[in-house]
């Protein structure tokens, strides 16, 4: 357990281990073959598993997802890579209408064990089409699961869980974390279960819920607040659909105050649903309104000045926490 991997290496190791374990697992996408993917995630896989199980596809996002669905109907467990999460819009129909509905319209007689990997998120100078956080579209679609790891440990453990899951899973891997997040990873058959959040920091004054690259500034803000005498409990959602309502509620029962931090744009990002659910089920426990710190409703600009202005950071998060604590 002392081995440390980067988030990116953890994803790669999950793929390699699952491919070794189960010959039905294969990967496909643009440049995933000998090149090893735009970010190097699949490096070495082609050498080990060959052309048939590490498939360089044409530029055809819709087909990449559709092919995965087809293979899944014969018992395969394809892991499709979108080169950037932004391009998932081109494979959208196959995910939301083909994959998400199949089991339902088959009367429960089939499963769709596919994973769509989507490198998402900003703060990497990517601009409008290499920085998006498209998770909410999929959280809004019944029949899918959506995960978004923030640590190397979860990156590996959630990907293994996703590959073994019999439902279509959209796996958002955050580009900013690829080489920045490092840590131990699960070994052997250990997975990180889908649907279970992780408490990254205990606290009894305010609950902060975040995920992905927002964990770092969130934890930093929590540290600052601690110095000011406010103990923030920080929850890493890890799974966005279905999200771990119980974990949030348990924490809320202690703190009675909730902040949600998301890199996604504000309107109808996951924070909206969490806020609405807390409203419905925990209204009487709230000592303050649920608040959101989010990307403004705009597109990710390239300029680092502009992107910096948009991204939530420890300052903006700390300010919101202070407001909540003082409410």
């Amino acid at each position, binding site marked *: 357990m002392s081995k440390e991997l980067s988030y990116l290496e953890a994803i790669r190791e999950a793929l390699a281990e699952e491919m070794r374990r189960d010959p039905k697992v*294969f990967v496909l996408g643009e440049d995933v073959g000998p090149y090893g993917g735009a970010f190097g995630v699949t490096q070495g896989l082609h050498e080990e598993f060959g052309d*048939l*199980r590490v*498939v360089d*596809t*044409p530029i*055809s996002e*819709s*087909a*990449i*997802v*559709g*092919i*995965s*669905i*087809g*293979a*899944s*109907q*014969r018992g*395969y467990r*394809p892991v499709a890579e979108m080169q950037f999460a932004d391009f998932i819009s081109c494979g959208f*129909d*196959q995910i939301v*209408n*083909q994959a998400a*509905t*199949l*089991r*339902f*319209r*088959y*009367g*429960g*007689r*089939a*499963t769709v064990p596919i994973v769509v990997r989507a490198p998402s998120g900003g703060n990497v100078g990517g601009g409008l089409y290499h920085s998006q956080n498209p998770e909410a579209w999929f959280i809004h679609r*019944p*029949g899918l*699961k959506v995960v978004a790891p923030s640590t190397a440990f979860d990156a590996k453990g959630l990907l293994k869980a996703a590959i073994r*899951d*019999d*439902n279509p899973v959209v796996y958002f891997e955050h580009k900013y974390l690829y080489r920045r997040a490092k840590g131990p990873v699960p070994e052997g058959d250990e997975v990180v279960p889908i649907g279970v959040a992780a408490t990254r920091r205990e606290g009894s004054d305010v609950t902060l819920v975040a995920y992905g690259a927002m964990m770092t500034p969130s934890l930093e803000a929590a540290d600052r607040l601690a110095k000011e005498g406010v103990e923030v409990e920080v929850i890493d959602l890890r799974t966005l659909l279905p999200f771990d309502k119980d974990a949030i509620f348990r924490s809320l029962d202690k703190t009675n105050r909730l902040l949600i931090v998301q890199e996604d744009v504000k309107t109808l990002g996951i924070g909206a649903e969490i806020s609405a659910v807390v409203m419905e089920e925990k209204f009487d426990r709230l000592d303050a309104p649920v608040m959101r710190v989010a990307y403004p409703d705009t597109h990710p600009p390239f300029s680092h000045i502009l992107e910096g202005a948009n991204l939530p950071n420890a300052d903006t998060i700390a300010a919101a926490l202070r407001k909540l604590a003082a409410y």
Partner: protein
Amino acid sequence: MPPIKRTKFKLTSEQLLEMFYWLKLIRAFDERLSILVKQGKVRSGVYTGIGQEAIIVGTCFGLRREDFICPLHRDLGALLMKGVDARTMMSQMFAKTTGLSKGRDSALHSGVNELGIFGNTSMLGANLPVAAGLGYTFKMEKSDNVVIAYFGEGASNVGDFHEALNFAGVQQLPIVFICENNQYAYSVPLEKTMAIDDVAIRAEGYGFDGVAINGNDVLAVYQATQGALARARGGDGPTLIECKTYRWHGHSEHDKAFYRTDEELAMWKSRDPIPTFTTYLRARHVLDDQKLKEIESKVEATIEDAVEFASSAPDPSPEDAVSDLYA
């Protein structure tokens, strides 16, 4: 592609009669559905393939259980031939729990993996990438099973068509693509949606052969399909077969089809695949009055039984509206 020899793939008298049975059964099934819609017993989702049966019979005849088909909205007969019994099929149209979708669907959006049947969404063309995925698994397994994927000439204008056929071509997948060119996409005649006469030539852009044939001649369809299947099973990749045909009814049972002339319809009715084939069988002494009567009563009995079964089958219960979403 070498020209199709009608005599290349020999059929016994028994097989010919079996083909005849399927033509009659599929026609009768669709005709009954058309009545059931008018009676309000089947509520929607009925797109008959009356007039196009030779395509289904000629392509599905003799397929292995392991072979996969990816049928479309008019291809109910393909499901029957591939092994879904008439009771289940009728239950599907009645939206009963005994149908493939457990009452959630009254159209052909359901499949049976054990029988090698994929059930598409409504989205035209979306079955083709799935077909590519199925075919890819046969390639991985070095198996000689095949996939037959259907699409209308209208659907050949959808992006998914292009992405799927390109992938099938470059990967040399064991797929036979069947274009059911019935001249119209809903109300729009072919010449308003593409500047070519034969969809078949599109195959060239993907590096495999395409051929246009008389889709109302069940033996011509059978021979062409067998040739393509042999190539596919032998590892020589996909073929596109364009079957020229015509649908007698409107696009759906609600469409009065004013966009075409009575003369055109009459001309195509004179090319009805069933009498043509009847004459052929009689001339060869495969069919006589006695056999014809036997087959017709078997068809009638099957349909009657299916309608009776479906009519009295249980309706779904409200919980079925939200179950079977996740495995």
